[in-house]
């Protein structure tokens, strides 16, 4: 039915110290057999995000990679759905909060600089080259000098 590489998941970006990946928390509903109720169950996934487009708190669509990049990085960021503090209603396309849609002109007067909107659909996410042709793969993943390690 569904091919292995088309597995997609929805999650929220969570803090992590990784250099080129985002830690995404995925909640799925699991039935408790005794109480007979569905409860959210959290699981974590490391997804490839080299340009650091996602912020902590974004709701993100994550897709399984055909080949794992490292032992932990098994997915990649496919699309940012709701950016934190900057939600765009998919029906109207306007920015909004839970009460109302935002008036863009008023906001420009109030706020000089608004956060950059990144949907994740730009070229940074496109895997133009195959994994083996990536320049990053030629250099070692971790430098061998102790002073370069950022822990």
């Amino acid at each position: 039915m569904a091919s292995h590489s088309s597995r997609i998941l929805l999650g929220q970006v969570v803090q992590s110290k990784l250099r080129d990946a985002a830690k995404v928390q995925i909640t799925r509903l699991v039935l408790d057999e005794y109480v007979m109720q569905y409860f959210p169950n959290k699981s974590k996934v490391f997804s490839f995000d080299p340009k650091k487009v996602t912020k902590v708190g974004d709701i993100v669509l994550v897709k399984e990679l055909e080949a794992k990049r490292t032992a932990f990085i098994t997915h990649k960021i496919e699309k940012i759905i709701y950016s934190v503090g900057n939600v765009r209603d998919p029906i109207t396309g306007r920015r909004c909060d839970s009460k109302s849609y935002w008036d863009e002109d008023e906001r420009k007067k109030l706020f000089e600089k608004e956060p950059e909107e990144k949907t994740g659909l730009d070229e940074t996410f496109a895997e133009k080259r195959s994994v083996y042709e990536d320049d990053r793969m030629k250099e070692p993943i971790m430098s061998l000098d102790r002073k370069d390690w950022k822990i």
Partner: protein
Amino acid sequence: MPMKGKFPLRRTLRYLERGNVYLRDTVKIVTINYNTLGETHKGARDFVFYNLPQLQYKNQNVQMQTFKNLTPSPFIRCFLNDGDEVLIDIDSKSNTSILEHVKKLLGKSEEILSAERKAREKKTNPANFGREFARECICQVPGQVPCPSVVPLPEELRGKNIDYRTLLLKPARGRDPNIPDEEEEED
């Protein structure tokens, strides 16, 4: 133990099994956005309270998630296999009409469901042997003739040892012995 809580009937197995919306295989994620306050969101809230457990029970492999208080209008957003999205506006709708709408848009039709049911029966029927069934060959059943690749057949059952000349001259096994043979003229 008494049934506690608001509408505890939805925490019974019978209620969960009553769900009749089977989502198509391409649907992978279902998200519902609604607010905790507001009359226009009431249908969405009821849908999540009454119908979401039934929907999840019948579609175990679909990720279902709710988002509260993000946008002023409620909607259901489904993500399909190939990157497609389905947006359903559920503003000021009752939970039953929302469920019907989802069933019409993303649910499997009766024909597909009955075909799947037949395919499942075919698989569970123990009389069927083959690669897609439970047993590939009758040699796997204890008590039957074992697989000739593992245990060689006795000489007389092997095709190369059958004496076809004498076999053809013998009467067929189904012949009635009481009926006399037709006498053939021998040359």
